[in-house]
């Protein structure tokens, strides 16, 4: 609710009626948005484009009167949707998600190989499962916030997370993975 008050309190442009300082409101959210998009797409350039598009969408919706109760969760939800759209679009079909050539020809460093394998496993997850994994493990968000961004209940988010962990690390106990 604090963010609703923030949006409502913004001075408005006299001509357009739009809040005057939307960049100021959205700017702190761009960093987390970039982190989310990078983790979802494994491609920095596409991630930047996606967050750019998401910020435009957010701007338009806020200008049109949207008053999300939690601005951060709402914005990250917009970014997540744009990540899914980016993978659907033909023009991104050339994006080699998570499989960078340099890792195949580089030194057989165990850590690099483990990272490559893990990214490959993440890419194989369904978008909805990958989203909760990224939000929980990479953005370090609590489960209720993960659920809000994913647009599901907390129990559904937990179920997705457990399912994803079993796929990523079949040899690992779920409770152990959650540490």
């Amino acid at each position, binding site marked *: 609710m604090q963010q609703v008050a923030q949006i409502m309190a913004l001075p408005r442009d006299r001509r357009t009626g739009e809040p005057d300082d939307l960049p100021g409101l959205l700017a702190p959210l761009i960093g987390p948005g970039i982190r989310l998009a990078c983790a979802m797409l494994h491609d920095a350039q596409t991630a*930047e484009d996606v967050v750019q598009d998401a910020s435009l969408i957010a701007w338009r919706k806020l200008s049109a009167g949207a008053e999300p109760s939690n601005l951060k969760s709402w914005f990250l939800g917009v970014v997540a949707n744009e990540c899914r759209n980016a993978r659907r679009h033909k023009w991104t079909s050339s994006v080699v998600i998570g499989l*960078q050539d340099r890792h195949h020809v580089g030194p057989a460093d165990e850590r690099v190989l483990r990272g490559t394998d893990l990214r490959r496993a993440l890419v194989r997850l369904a978008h909805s499962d990958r989203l909760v994994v990224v939000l929980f493990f990479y953005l370090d968000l609590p489960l209720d916030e993960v659920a809000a961004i994913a647009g599901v209940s907390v129990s559904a988010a937990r179920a997705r997370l457990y399912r994803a962990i079993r796929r990523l690390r079949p040899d690992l106990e779920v409770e152990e993975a959650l540490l």
Partner: protein
Amino acid sequence: MSLRVDIHDAIAEVAGDERAMAARVVAAMVVRPALSRTHRRRRWTAPLRGIASLVAVLLGITLIVGLLSGGRVLQDWHSYSAKPQPSPNVDMALVAQLEARPLDLHTIPAGAECPTGPYSAYSGYGSGPVSLIGGLVKHSNWGNYFNSLVYTDVRLTGYVIGRGLDLKTGHAVVFIGNRAIGPAVGTDNVERNRVQQHGVLLLDTDHPPATITDYGKLRVWGIPVGLDWDSSGCTGFQFDGTSFSQTFVVSGGWGGVTMFWPQSENG
């Protein structure tokens, strides 16, 4: 090692420079209002069909071209060929006081890493009341001129002067157009326009021209910034105002059109 740490490590390898990316996105957002208004126009043109839609498209193109070529921010960039003409009301004694401040920009060895930053939360490089981000480039025999956007806090008052230095070659940055002041340090031909190069930029924040645009808390000035062909891509800027002095370092490679923007460390 925990799954959390493994995921952090795995994604970090493909994540890029998040701060630079975020700075670019925010900077684009700041100059977006004009574009968002064109989106609204597109909505009511959608039901039009046939010739009407063609006319609408042509009108739309005209509108966008108008925004870009005659729009407030970009209009300012057409001051390329304008001779430096400080307003007769400018108090040159005050400007001279600012110019007398020593440059706090230090050259570094050619092979050293460029100490890029700090970044603005809003608008590219510079974390004080002034920040800068680059734009389209024009070439000449002498070097390259970046249509840079200089952002100042709208609450800033008085004169602000800007100076710059290539930190690896030691060559001074030049400014052209009607906000360049001081003695001419050279001349050049930019797209058939004869221009005078100056080493100092002057922003009179108390009397911004009508073409200057404010976006929320930021005032956006279009400034052509020139770097010679020997430029290392590691450029320090110092901005001095009556109440502040600020430096930041911009880095960028050559070969694109927006190379003065914050560059990703990986790209």
